[in-house]
């Protein structure tokens, strides 16, 4: 496997009337070919902004990518001109969003919207591209696909629109698919349909994928690796077995503890993380989780307030060294039993 995407020290801010929003504060990660990375974190933790930044889609103003590199196939995407970037978007990297209605044009038929990109990126003529568009819709499970090319987005249900978005995303065989909460607005039975579909297509197309969600259950089922974000920083990252089965970061632990389980009777009280998510208008000097962290409190770690913990390999980890976290304490070393 070789590295497909290499993100380093990404910093993104928004300069708004209410002040500067410190949305992404130094994010670095790698993605291998064919790999699925799940990015989880609460609302406002910087999941969408960091992936929009890789795609050159940060609205500017008010947004600004302050620093960082995004190496994709030997090029730094952050240095490309807008029209070079446009060629990569849709062709090499595709993106699907939570609400398909915001990315589908309501006044154009589905067929027009899919064929447009096929004509642009693949140089197909009208009848070739219509044939291919119908095949794509058929592949994502839209019945009677050829006829439905002439329908408008509002004539499809929410789940079907998301299928259409997936068909459009896959139309040019991208190497990387970024899916930002693609199933959050859908019912669980429809979500299960979409997840099955994406898993199957991912193998067929041999794509790498970034799947953004706040639902830890969803990524447990599809991601090879998990990245947990909080306050615009990566708190912990590792294989899904490492993060779910052997989490080392107080925030990850807290998050997992606060989730009830479908598969066991819920008699214990949920552990709760006290306090509320950070206000992103203040740049935290130290660890963004410090105000809510009971490990910091228990260990009386003053450092957490004013020094940012670096993202480093988890100490004494049996794995291949890719299980990393950013924390001054290692909760397995003596603290966990006492908290």
């Amino acid at each position, binding site marked *: 496997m070789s590295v497909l995407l290499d993100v380093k020290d990404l910093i993104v801010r928004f300069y708004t009337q209410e002040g500067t929003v410190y949305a992404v504060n130094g994010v670095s990660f790698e993605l291998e070919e064919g790999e699925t990375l799940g990015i989880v974190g609460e609302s406002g933790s910087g999941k969408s902004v960091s992936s929009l930044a890789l795609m050159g889609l940060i609205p500017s103003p008010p947004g600004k990518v302050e620093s960082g590199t995004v190496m994709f196939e030997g090029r730094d995407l952050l240095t490309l001109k807008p029209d070079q970037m446009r060629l990569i978007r849709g062709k090499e990297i595709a993106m699907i969003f939570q609400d398909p209605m915001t990315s589908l044009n309501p006044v154009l038929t589905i067929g027009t919207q899919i064929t447009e990109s096929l004509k642009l990126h693949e140089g197909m003529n009208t009848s070739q591209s219509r044939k291919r568009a119908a095949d794509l819709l058929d592949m994502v499970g839209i019945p009677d696909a050829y006829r439905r090319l002439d329908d408008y987005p509002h004539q499809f249900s929410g789940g079907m629109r998301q299928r259409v978005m997936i068909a459009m995303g896959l139309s040019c065989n991208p190497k990387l698919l970024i899916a930002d909460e693609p199933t959050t607005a859908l019912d669980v039975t429809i979500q299960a349909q979409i997840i099955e579909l994406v898993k199957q297509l991912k193998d067929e197309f041999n794509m790498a994928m970034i799947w953004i969600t706040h639902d830890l*259950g969803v990524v*447990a*089922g599809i991601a090879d690796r998990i990245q947990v974000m909080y306050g615009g920083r990566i708190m912990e990252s590792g294989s899904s077995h490492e993060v779910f089965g052997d989490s080392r970061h107080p925030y990850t632990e807290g998050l997992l503890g606060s989730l009830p*389980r479908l598969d066991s009777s*819920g008699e214990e009280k949920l552990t709760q993380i006290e306090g*509320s998510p950070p206000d992103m208008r203040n740049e935290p000097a130290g660890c963004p989780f410090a105000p809510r962290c009971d490990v910091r409190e228990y260990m009386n770690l003053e450092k957490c307030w004013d020094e940012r913990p670096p993202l480093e390999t988890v100490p004494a980890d049996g794995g291949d060294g890719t299980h990393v976290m950013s924390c001054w304490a290692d909760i397995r070393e003596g603290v966990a039993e006492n908290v």
Partner: protein
Amino acid sequence: MSSQVMTAENRKSLDENDVILEVTDLKKHFPISSGIVFQRQVGAVRAVDGISFHVVRGETLGLVGESGCGKSTTGRTILQLYRPTEGSVKFEGQELSTMGGNDLRQMRRRMQIIFQDPFASLNPRMTVGSIVSEPLQIHKIYSNKKERQQYVEQLMEKVGLNPYFINRYPHEFSGGQRQRIGIARALALEPSFIVADEPISALDVSIQAQVVNLMEELQDELNLTYLFIAHDLSMVRHICDRVAVMYLGKIVELGPVDEVYDNPQHPYTQALLSAVPVPDPMVEENRQRIIISGDLPSPANPPTGCNFNTRCPVRFDLCFEEPDPPLIEARPDHYVSCHRVT
């Protein structure tokens, strides 16, 4: 973090005979009209289409099902915020569906609702103090302003809000805090029954546990009864004693949570539970999913026969014939509406 462990057994001692709410054959249809000058009814959305269940004092009944299946309409019709099209709602022994005016207003003190969206459900121009005390003013409780303020401060403390913030406005609070304001307001009149309509859906994961724990603590302390409407089936298993699964305006399965989750009988419940992702990669790797194809039919035009027959993986001839399957007790206390289950 609290280390206190409570089990369902020591948490609840329910008296099965103390039925607080009894719903029988409840229907709520919304008319679909056409015509601009002369409106005439051309059909109806059968949002709730004949449901029956009861709730015991002190218990939490969960109401689950996909978007549009009629959960909120059920909650609102019980509270008489919508008047039923047909059927009966008996609360603490009294029939609500025919009750009007002052009697109903008095009754409403005993039944409250908490909404999903803590942002939209609070008046942005009112301070927390006036939001929480509004029900007290409407019902003219506490003519003495000082006493009222003291009571509001007590309520705020009870739901974990600092009374110091009594003069602040909703936008100055986080989502979880706003939901606490909603809960304080619902508790102001000392209700015995609360419809919680997706009270945690809009909240961050780390905040959901705070609100759920608060609701459980208040239930113990005040002997509250909840109808807990939710999408999150894992949370429902955690917080509820029994669960009712709705599909297209009808209850398809009803029973104690552990029983229904461990032995789902209705094909829809089976598919629904199998679709819920579990935050554990080991479990996910070995899971068998029942994927049901297609979308929810329109409640304005439900199928003939069993409502689930357009998507059911195990349907057969009988499922397309009237009458639709009745809700029968398939296992002890466990009710199912399906021709395959007898």
